[in-house]
């Protein structure tokens, strides 16, 4: 049934992905079989059937051509494609996605380039992080509101978010599995003597540093990352382990809705070229409800969730009530002396299995029964 599908041939290799999706169940169980051969960093997929009607099988053909609109090429929302590995070790890093970012590693700091949307997202996420962290301190130095804080930026890429946090006075550690990204980030901060001292970069994954940095950070930032990890549960567990009690976890990601499919994948990647093709896989998007359940089950109490909207014409982001596209979440790790998870937290829908409590939380954790 996909015999008539197009194979674009521009001298590059193709990536074929077969998705099998089973409808009819309420769970979001998806099996993804990937055989990945990447050449270009950009690839797109064209569904052969209407997107809202999932047949049993859907083939996505990856074409490696770049499609950009001249007027919109400033605006690309770039995520981190962390590819999936099938291995027995618990890892959250997806190697196929690593390759995607490899080729664009030098483009991070072009503010009008493909990463422009991430640059302008700083206007939202830096105040979000800063203001929520300031609530936890009595007073602060006017010039360096975050001084004295240790922050871990997971999936820092080229350091787009790491540097502003460093400028605000925090000691930031940025980690990313893509070596080239870390190189770009290192080089960029090396010109500024102050940032050079405050920021430290490492090319590694979160799991690799969990042992040595247990309870070391006041805040962990995972911005535009969780939609690329393989094993979200493990990832959140690790985040929780490296946080001090009472520390904050900040996540920004994309919701898994039909709207995010239509706008985030079809429009942004296919049509407008805002996001390089193949950056995102819709199945990996995480809904706020699912994220909240995982956070809560790991002893992180969700303080706030807010929607973010991107205007591709102006290039600016805005806060929104609507979380069906992008959203930001702030959760706090319960400390030993903290009060338990607030009762007013309401769970929306979905039957989820709760994992057992994370070992780092000694205090009495109330199970949220659903």
């Amino acid at each position, binding site marked *: 049934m996909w015999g008539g599908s197009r194979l674009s041939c521009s001298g590059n290799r193709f990536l074929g992905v077969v998705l099998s999706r089973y409808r009819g169940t309420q769970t979001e169980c998806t099996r993804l079989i990937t055989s990945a051969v990447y050449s270009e960093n950009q690839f797109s997929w064209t569904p052969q059937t209407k997107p809202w009607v999932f047949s049993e099988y859907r083939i996505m053909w990856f074409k490696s051509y770049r499609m950009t609109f001249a007027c919109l090429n400033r605006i690309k929302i770039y995520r981190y494609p962390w590819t999936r590995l099938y291995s027995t070790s618990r890892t959250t890093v997806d190697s196929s996605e690593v390759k995607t970012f490899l080729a664009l590693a030098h483009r991070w700091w072009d503010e009008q380039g493909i990463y422009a949307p991430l640059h302008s997202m700083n*206007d939202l996420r830096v105040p979000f992080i800063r203001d929520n962290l300031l609530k936890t301190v009595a007073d602060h130095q006017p010039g360096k509101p975050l001084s004295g804080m240790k922050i871990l930026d997971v999936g820092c890429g080229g350091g787009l978010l790491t540097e502003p*946090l460093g400028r*605000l006075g925090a000691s930031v550690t940025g980690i990313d599995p893509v070596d080239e990204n870390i190189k770009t980030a290192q080089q960029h901060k090396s010109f500024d003597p102050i940032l050079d001292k405050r920021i430290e970069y490492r090319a590694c994954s979160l799991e690799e540093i969990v042992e040595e940095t247990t309870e070391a950070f006041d805040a962990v930032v995972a911005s535009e990352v969780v939609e690329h990890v393989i094993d979200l549960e493990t990832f959140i567990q690790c985040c929780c382990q490296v946080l001090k009690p009472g520390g904050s976890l900040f996540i920004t990601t994309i919701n898994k809705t039909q709207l995010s499919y239509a706008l985030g994948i079809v429009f942004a990647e296919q049509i407008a070229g805002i996001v390089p093709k193949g950056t995102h896989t819709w199945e990996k998007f995480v809904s706020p409800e699912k994220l909240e359940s995982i956070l809560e089950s790991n002893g992180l109490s969700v303080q706030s969730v807010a929607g973010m909207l991107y205007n591709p014409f102006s290039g600016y982001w805005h806060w929104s009530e609507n979380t069906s596209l992008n959203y930001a979440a702030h959760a706090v790790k319960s400390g030993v002396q903290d009060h338990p998870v607030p009762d007013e937290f309401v769970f929306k829908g979905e039957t989820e299995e709760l994992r057992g409590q994370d070992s780092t939380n000694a205090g009495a954790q109330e199970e949220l029964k659903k």
Partner: protein
Amino acid sequence: MAARLALSRWRAAPAAAGRGPLLSCRRWSGAKADTVYDVVVSGGGLVGAAMACALGFGAWDHICNMRYRAFRRMQVWDACSEALIMFDKDNLDDMGYIVENDVIMCALTKQLEAVSDRVTVLYRSKAVGYTWPYPFPMTDSSPWVHITLGDGSTLQTKLLIGADGHNSGVRQAAGIQNVSWNYDQSAVVATLHLSEATENNVAWQRFLPSGPIALLPLSDTLSSLVWSTSHEHAAELVSMDEEKFVDAINSAFWSDANHTDFIDSAGAMLQYAVAFLKPTKVSARQLPPSVARVDARSRMSFPLGLGHAAEYVRPRLALIGDAAHRVHPLAGQGVNMGFGDISSLVHHLSAAAFNGKDLGSMSHLTGYETDRQRHNTALLAATDLLKRLYSTSATPLVLLRTWGLQATNAVSPLKEQIMAFASK
């Protein structure tokens, strides 16, 4: 605000103020070769110094301890007719303040000393070259602006602010286009002693065909003169002896030589009509004070022109003050626009710094540019129009402006709008 506001600025010759080329430069002490400044302000005139202070904080207090004058009213009238416009605030608040150039500079210098831990001043140095960064970070090339000084040393900065006057070296080095033309006029400035002490709280301006002459109060016995006129006349005025100069000033304010009967009657007609339609109070015409003496060393002149930079900002560069816009002094708005630039730029920079942004990033610099271009373009256009309108004694235009002035005078809300715009 950013944790470390390292300000470095220097003064290129502020020719507009008629001073000799006092070149000064400000720099952060304790600098090693590889220190990167947050901001460097190039140009040490009123606007440059004020920018340095604003980024390091607060200077008005010093001014209050020195000479300044509040004025309550402003009367502007035409030499070719009886038409006048009076700006008057009904309540007794001051409409504005006249502060001498020197007084402001003195206050700013004092303030800069007070914030010297954050701001360094490099006196007597001149920037001879600028190196701009690539728009796109490239390997091994510095992302900062490099400024080469006359003595061979280099400064690096994240943001260069050009406040070096209408012949801005910064603007030229950046290749920013500048729309400009010269008026065939020079302005003569002087400090005058009035014949008798009065409650000197009115600002006077009369439009002569050769150019406007303005008398601005400084104290009960002192006023400041700004007389824009042709180059030759200006040169004469500066060189003539004191008595003749004083006579020239007095006759400029009082003489009716340029009136014509036709215009007078036309003006009177409209005046009756206005009084009929709006028989509310009309402030009585006041007579300007007469001048007795001139301060000997205070007389000087400088040429006038209009200028407007096509872009106020580039990556890691911002232009403020006369470097961005140059205007005729007839509305007294030149340095005010510069101060407005400062206020807007400081606002944008502090918001950016609080978000941890790179100070030289275009995202907030374009915000400053949009704000100020909107405001300044309108003011420049209006001032240029007024200048051209009042430069002639051709009857139709005189009639037009006579009636226009009288009509504007009659419409109080319009006058209030004008005052509000000018005080922004």
